[in-house]
């Protein structure tokens, strides 16, 4: 990652913990997506994770899966998502794009990475695209070419030999799920997680982001002992669905 990459500058700033807030492009609508991002930033988000909706999101629980389906039903396209990305980038925080392999593959992997770079993103997270697949390799190559970090997603239970393999190509930060499973469900943040987090930090030698099941200030406080970046997603999607104040919720979590 280049030194003037917005994400790199933020990670080097020493502010800890950083807060990465997740949202879905096109949810609750294309028009309102920018407002959601603005509320998250106003509420204290340091990084925005912008999910480009996919019909069958394997790593997501019912909250994000149903919201993705709603966004697609309302007609959200990849082109819309890229427009939203530009606007979110305009809010001044680093943006990590998240999606699944198939939409990226169909768009063309190199073309997709170039498009998000042009729109101002600094990283991409594709949880079902292992680095050692043909597409994973293409993603890494395009990332290097465009100064976009390809963020590895790891979980407690992934053995050290595998982490070491992934670490060779990692940049930016490491996304660590708080447990094995999918997004949204309540997490206990076990001792296993703390042990795994320290192993992952040692092997990757990068800031560690932890997500999955972050719902309250108490969760954030408990994770801040082991994580450099704390990620929350489903909690915001649920708040949007219920018509609650997203900015206030973000502030409650980050303050």
């Amino acid at each position, binding site marked *: 990652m280049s030194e003037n990459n917005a994400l790199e500058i933020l990670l080097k700033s020493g502010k800890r913990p950083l807060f990465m807030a997740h949202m879905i492009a096109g949810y609750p609508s294309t028009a309102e997506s920018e407002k959601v991002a603005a509320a998250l930033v106003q509420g204290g988000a340091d990084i925005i994770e912008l999910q480009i909706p996919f019909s069958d999101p394997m790593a997501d629980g019912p909250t994000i899966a149903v919201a993705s389906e709603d966004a697609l039903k309302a007609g959200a396209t990849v082109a819309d998502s890229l427009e939203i990305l530009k606007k979110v980038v305009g809010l001044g925080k680093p943006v990590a794009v998240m999606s699944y392999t198939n939409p990226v593959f169909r768009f063309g992997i190199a073309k997709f990475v170039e498009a998000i770079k042009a729109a101002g993103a600094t990283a991409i997270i594709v949880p079902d695209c292992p680095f050692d*697949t043909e597409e994973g390799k293409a993603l890494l190559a395009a990332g290097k070419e465009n100064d976009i970090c390809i963020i590895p997603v790891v979980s407690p239970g992934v053995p050290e030999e595998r982490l070491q393999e992934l670490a060779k190509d990692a940049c930016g930060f490491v996304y660590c799920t708080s447990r094995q499973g999918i997004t949204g469900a309540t997490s206990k943040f076990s001792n296993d997680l703390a042990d795994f987090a320290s192993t992952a930090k040692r092997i990757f030698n990068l800031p560690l982001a932890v997500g999955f099941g972050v719902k309250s200030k108490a969760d954030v406080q408990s994770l801040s002992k082991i994580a450099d970046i704390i990620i929350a997603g489903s909690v915001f999607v649920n708040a949007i669905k219920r018509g609650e104040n997203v900015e206030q919720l973000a502030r409650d979590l980050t303050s």
Partner: protein
Amino acid sequence: MKNSKYGGAYVPEMLWETLKELTAAFESAKNDPAFQKEFQDLLKNYSGRPTTLIFAERATADLGGAKIYLKNEGANLSGAHKITHCLGQGLLAKRLGKKMLIAETGAGQHGVATATVAARLGLECIVFMGTEDIRRQRPNVFLMERLGAKVVPVEYGSKTLKDAVNEALKFWMEHLAEAHYCIGSVLGPSPYPEMNRYFQSVIGREIRAQLQEREGKLPSAVLACVGGGSNAMGSFDDFIGEKSVRLIGVEAGGIGKNVGEHASRKIAGVPGIFQGYKSLFLQTDEGQIAPTHSISAGLDYPGIGPELAELYESGRVELTYATDAEAVDAADFFAKHEGVISALESAHALAEVRKMAPKMGRDEIIVATLSGRGDKDLFNFARAFKDESFKQFLKDEYERK
């Protein structure tokens, strides 16, 4: 078979170790005489193999062309070929120390087979099934529950097979230590496509041996219906090297060629990456998975096994399709001519037999695999044939105290 273009393991890293362990268990089991002995014993003395190869004499005479044989996988204990890969995977799950089998199901055949094997091997069982499929295949839900399985309805997406796979994958990721995901077709992340083909390849070996004994030669063509492709790969595998044998997969032509009206990758499949594997999928230009339709829940799925996709693209396997109406007609034709009531899935292969056989010589042989028997489709057949007395029976049954 070396598979390079399609396949792979496109899954979150948390599955890496589990898939690695499963691959190792599968590789060691292949060369373990104790495993082979137990597997073969279960196939023979539990499921009832070899299944019969029925000479469809009256259908052959009526259609006036090739000699027609039906490989009767419906004779298996659980009513379909699915039990074969379930027995194989169930034994592997026990070797891996798992306590539970989980499965997705469309028509319910793979769910019933998994529940059957779980009961036999003393494992817990959870089956995920879309609510649309539960509506179409309610009798199999009843059977799974009688076999001790828990059936979990899946109420999002298209509420069919693909959504059941999604939900099973998600449950699995949360229960990796105790659960083995018994994937029901030749698809999903590696090693599943190869592993299920390996177990199912007994179908083709039996066809070859039975035909050799009865006719002393190879068939001109082997046909099977294709949803994901498990009975097709099982039927074809042994014949891939026999260039004189045409291998024909019959997909669900549904009610039309527009998006959402069929489940045929021949009509509209393009390369994609979904549910852990790379293959041909029905999808939009932006890579969103497309809705599908088939009268048969077991074929109502957007993807095709990666090895089968590769064999199709290389020209070794031909794909064609039969419509909903053709499948129902074909099931009726073979019921009346041969006393064989086929599952609606398998009836797609029978529909192609009716089209092909008359154009072939009388010295030629065509074998169609009947992947399952049609008991489960009682309600669907009754509706398709507008059977008023059956409707009255249901009404009476409902009102009966």
